[in-house]
């Protein structure tokens, strides 16, 4: 809502209040003022001039030399390029030393050899908003009304000595969508009177035009008022009215349209003028549309209606869509002399629904959507009749006709003083509360510790006690609410174990050199299908009903695709290496159309590519490989105290077929680790890239409640034995180690792989693996004999199960 400071003064006295002070008071009272715009935009020394003569420029076809009377004895010679300048006009003249918006200064100059003592200005040059101007005004100089006095400051004539406050209204304060509403608010805040405008209620003198209203849409339209006005003479509105509309951001059209807009801005009640001659028998029937019914609206578009569309009809055909847009047939035209003026209450849900369906929103519909004040419907009509009389020679040709379904209910709300104090935590004296209701102009009856408040219809946001508590707090001043701390029952307050574990995971990876990133939950199906996420393969990504773009269409089922995107972004920005992780949610549902909320699972995912440690002056750059990333994950599992994690080779689309492993916890897959398939990596300009993803829930379930227990340090010496084996190359070492551990039992303390190689000396298809085994007993020193027996047992088993031979 744009509020002209000057206009507002018609309704409330602001003599000792500057625009800035007014804005501060409103903001403090809960109506935020976004911007205070000084309408003059810095215009200075622009005055009214009379164009006494216009001569062609001798050397320039498009320029004209004007002789202008600007009030001084001597006329000004001004060169002007506008096509519409003509002798006899009153125009704005920027004289030598004048200033225009944007800091433009006007000086005497020469244009193609002819001296020019200033400039004739267009509306745009004076800072008027271009989109609100008529075509002539946009293209040429601004022609002022004939009756303005030469030499007058143009700011005075165009109402530029004004400030406009842009209110950022919250949805509950639709009462401030009108100047009168704002005036009530300002009057309450500053404790002033409100001056309401008058209107004409008297009946028509003379011929009565027929007017009938039928309401046939129940709650969609409970109240409708109308009146016929005749004798109208269509013309441009006077300058003062145009100024007011421009300040409010509305384009002046003609005196009939402008009056309806003016009254809407003043009272908050949208009015609509139908050409009376197009309304059959002067009958208005408000009803819902029939299926398939069509209306051609003012903008020439044919609109398809449905059973929820509320129509204004003349009993035979639709002449408008209620509260949203009038029909083309009944539009006011240059030929119109008689109108049927509508002022009604259309239910907010109906207008909202229809406006949304048709994609139409206007100053009027946005007011209906929030609910207009039923008590201002008829006064608005009367006000318009008065203005039509003053500005367009209109006179009433019918009584005010009203039709309503049920009356307006009086709203009375009771406020308990004790409750007020309890909710606000501040002692407000009863007199102060009474005074606040007086300032608000809420009729109130004071009982013992209670206030019975009659809420005016202009404030539909107030219906229960707490609404009144807020009103009192607002006017008492929120800044007077002290700070105290709760004294009630204390609570411990802490992160849950799961939340702590998530923090540990993130901290561990950061310490290991990975950057934490946050990506969007929404992504594209194409991105997700680039590589397989086997743990969630039975789920299809959940789609938005109306996505904003293809890139943000579905909820992610894996975090890796966006890590790839992030890596690509950074590599393109000359990062030589990237190490990233994200701990975030994936969203899973096996329903085709959701009837239940999906599962939201926390996933940890990481990506490492390129030179993660840059080349040093005495060391080559470091790049990741499978085992460095595997080490990173193992490091994390140690930090979490999660044991029994194993890995198993796996093949999935999008992953390197020979360098990918499933991560198993107690034998159950919980994630995947591997090299990104080079084709996928290449598509994103990535070098050898490793990625991993692990579900967090199984880790948390495993950790649940585990506290590490101290064990006694070894008292007896360990015995070391090396074990060098030759086995078939395709036997995973994990299987060998499993057997070694199984046979070694409790006495085998550790198994460390220290060498793996292949070569001619080992034989085709074979590999050599070498382990360092450490044996130790808790309660005694092991003898060589014992160890030898156990060690041979291991060797034999490895031979039996895998054909492993001891290397000689």
């Amino acid at each position, binding site marked *: 809502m744009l509020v002209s400071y000057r206009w507002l003064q018609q309704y409330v006295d602001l003599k000792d209040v500057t625009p800035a002070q007014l804005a501060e008071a409103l903001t403090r009272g809960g109506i935020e003022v976004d911007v205070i715009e000084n309408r003059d935009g810095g215009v200075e020394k622009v005055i009214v001039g009379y164009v006494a003569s216009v001569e062609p420029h001798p050397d320039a076809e498009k320029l004209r030399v004007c002789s202008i009377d600007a009030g001084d004895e001597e006329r000004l010679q001004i060169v002007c390029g506008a096509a519409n300048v003509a002798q006899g006009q009153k125009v704005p003249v920027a004289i030598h030393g004048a200033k225009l918006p944007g800091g433009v200064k006007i000086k005497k100059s020469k244009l193609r050899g002819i001296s020019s003592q200033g400039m004739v200005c267009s509306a745009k040059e004076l800072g008027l908003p271009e989109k609100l101007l008529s075509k002539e005004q946009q293209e040429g100089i601004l022609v002022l009304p004939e009756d303005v006095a030469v030499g007058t400051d143009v700011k005075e004539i165009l109402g530029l000595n004004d400030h406009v406050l842009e209110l950022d209204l919250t949805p509950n304060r639709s009462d401030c969508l009108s100047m009168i509403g704002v005036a009530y608010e300002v009057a309450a805040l500053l404790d002033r009177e409100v001056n309401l405008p008058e209107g004409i209620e008297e009946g028509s003198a003379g011929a009565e035009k027929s007017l009938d209203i039928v309401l046939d849409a129940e709650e969609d339209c409970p109240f409708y008022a109308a009146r016929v006005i005749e004798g109208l003479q269509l013309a441009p509105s006077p300058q003062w009215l145009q100024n007011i509309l421009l300040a409010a951001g509305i384009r002046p059209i003609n005196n009939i349209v402008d009056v309806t807009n003016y009254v809407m801005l003043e009272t908050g009640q949208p009015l609509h003028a139908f050409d009376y001659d197009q309304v059959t028998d002067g009958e208005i029937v408000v009803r819902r549309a029939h299926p398939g019914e069509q209306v051609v609206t003012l903008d020439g578009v044919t609109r398809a209606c449905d059973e929820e569309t509320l129509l204004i009809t003349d009993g035979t055909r639709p002449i408008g869509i209620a509260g949203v847009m009038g029909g083309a047939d009944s539009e006011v035209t240059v030929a119109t002399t008689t109108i049927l003026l509508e002022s009604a209450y259309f239910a907010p849900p109906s207008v909202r629904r229809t406006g949304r369906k048709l994609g139409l929103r206007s100053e009027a519909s946005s007011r209906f959507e929030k609910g207009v004040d039923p008590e201002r419907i008829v006064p608005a009509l009367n006000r318009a009749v008065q203005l039509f009389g003053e500005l367009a020679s209109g006179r009433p040709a019918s009584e005010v006709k009203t039709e309503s379904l049920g009356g307006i209910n009086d709203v009375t709300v009771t406020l308990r003083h004790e409750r007020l104090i309890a909710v*606000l935590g501040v002692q407000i004296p009863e007199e102060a509360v009474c005074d606040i209701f007086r300032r608000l102009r809420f009729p109130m009856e004071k009982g013992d510790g209670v206030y019975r408040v009659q809420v005016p219809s202009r404030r539909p946001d107030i219906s229960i006690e*707490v609404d009144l508590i807020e009103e009192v707090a607002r006017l008492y001043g929120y800044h007077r609410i002290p700070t105290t701390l709760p004294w*009630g029952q204390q*609570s411990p307050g802490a992160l849950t174990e799961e939340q702590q574990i998530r923090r540990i995971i993130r901290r561990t990876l950061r310490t290991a050199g990975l*950057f*934490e990133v*946050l990506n969007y939950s929404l992504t594209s199906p194409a991105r997700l299908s680039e590589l397989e996420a086997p743990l969630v393969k039975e789920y299809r990504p959940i789609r938005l009903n109306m996505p904003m773009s293809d890139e943000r269409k579905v909820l992610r089922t894996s975090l890796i695709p966006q890590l790839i995107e992030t890596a690509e972004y950074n590599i393109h920005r000359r990062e030589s290496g990237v190490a990233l992780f994200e701990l975030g949610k994936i969203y899973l549902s096996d329903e085709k159309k959701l009837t239940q909320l999906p599962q939201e699972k926390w996933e940890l995912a990481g990506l490492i590519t390129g030179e993660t440690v840059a080349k*040093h002056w005495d060391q080559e750059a470091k790049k990741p490989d499978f085992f460095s990333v595997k080490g990173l994950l193992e490091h994390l599992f140690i930090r979490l105290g999660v044991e029994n994690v194993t890995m198993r080779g796996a093949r999935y689309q999008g992953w390197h077929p020979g360098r990918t492993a499933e991560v198993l916890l107690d034998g159950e897959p919980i994630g995947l680790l591997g090299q990104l398939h080079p084709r996928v990596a290449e598509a994103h300009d990535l070098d050898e890239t490793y990625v991993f993803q692990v579900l967090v829930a199984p880790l948390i379930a495993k950790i649940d409640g585990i506290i590490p227990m101290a064990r006694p340090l070894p008292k007896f010496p360990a015995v070391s034995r090396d074990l060098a084996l030759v086995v078939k190359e395709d036997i995973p070492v994990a299987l060998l180690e499993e057997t070694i551990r199984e046979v070694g039992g409790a006495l085998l303390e550790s198994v460390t792989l220290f060498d793996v190689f292949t070569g001619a000396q080992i034989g085709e298809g074979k590999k050599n693996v070498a382990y360092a085994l450490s044996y130790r007993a808790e309660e005694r020193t092991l003898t060589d004999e014992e160890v030898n027996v156990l060690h041979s047992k291991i060797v034999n088993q490895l031979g039996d199960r895998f054909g492993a031979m001891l290397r000689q």
Partner: protein
Amino acid sequence: MRERLELLKKEAEAAIEAAKGLEQLRDVKVKYLGKKGELTTVLRGMKDLSAEDRPVIGGLANEVRTGLEKKLTEKEEELREAALDARLEAEAIDVTLAARPQPLGGIHPIAAVVEQIEDIFTGMGFEVAEGPEVETDQYNFEALNLPQDHPARDMQDSFYITPEILLRTHTSPVQVRTMEAKEGQVPVKIICPGKVYRRDDDDATHSHQFYQVEGLVVDRGIAMSELHGILATFAEKIFGMALETRLRPSYFPFTEPSVEMDITCIKCSGKGCRMCKQTGWIEILGAGMVHPRVLEGAGYDSERYTGFAFGMGPDRIALLKYGIDDIRHLYTNDLKFLRQFQSV
């Protein structure tokens, strides 16, 4: 014999003194004190001495040996010291040469702010609650006093999946979920951090996905002054400085009275600058007393219990606190940006 011993001592001492390295010193030792060394040779002549002289000369010989051994040890120590010094000199490096880089990751600024918020509130006795990001219309709107045709639904155009299920537009549904789970028990003291989604085009100040931290306190006798107290304490802690706070009336369908809280501009300390649009104040959160309809809907008697709720944006706090000028930086994950927060 005495003379020979004295002479030998003198010679040996001179040789030790002259030794130019451990090698030479060892040779000296062998020459004089070795099994076939000169001292041994001299001592072989002992058998020719008289019974009276033998102990005297024997004592003298021992004295000479001990003396020489001591000298040898001292000299050896001296030479070792010198050798070590020489080696260390040779090992000298230019300590100003560049370090070998060690990998070090970093926290995302939003995650950092969320952790800070969590720590401040858990320190004040709050628990951290969580709720689904894909939410029902019922929890996201209806239960928060935002029925189907409520005008406030316009304020937050949402991403629907079905007519009943959407991406939550705020973390406020967790208020209701928490109260329902507590089944009327008090005190309720929670915050809920998480992602929220709105149909906004991404630009310098908007993001279709952002973070919110919701807070809720419900108990007997909770007043608006306590809302102010808790949130003023929070503001000072999160920005790490003494601040003034100002409450302004506002509107949220699920609280009443509703407030917005401003703090003195952290950039200009309230003097007025571009960041605070010359007002000296910056808005950091919205809050209010829990609407009685919300309390009742979640099973709390609104006559017995009151409470307050608040919501803040970690994204916005990160922008303010770290002087970030464009919210898109937070979701682009540019390493050149993220590296600036390694010390957070």
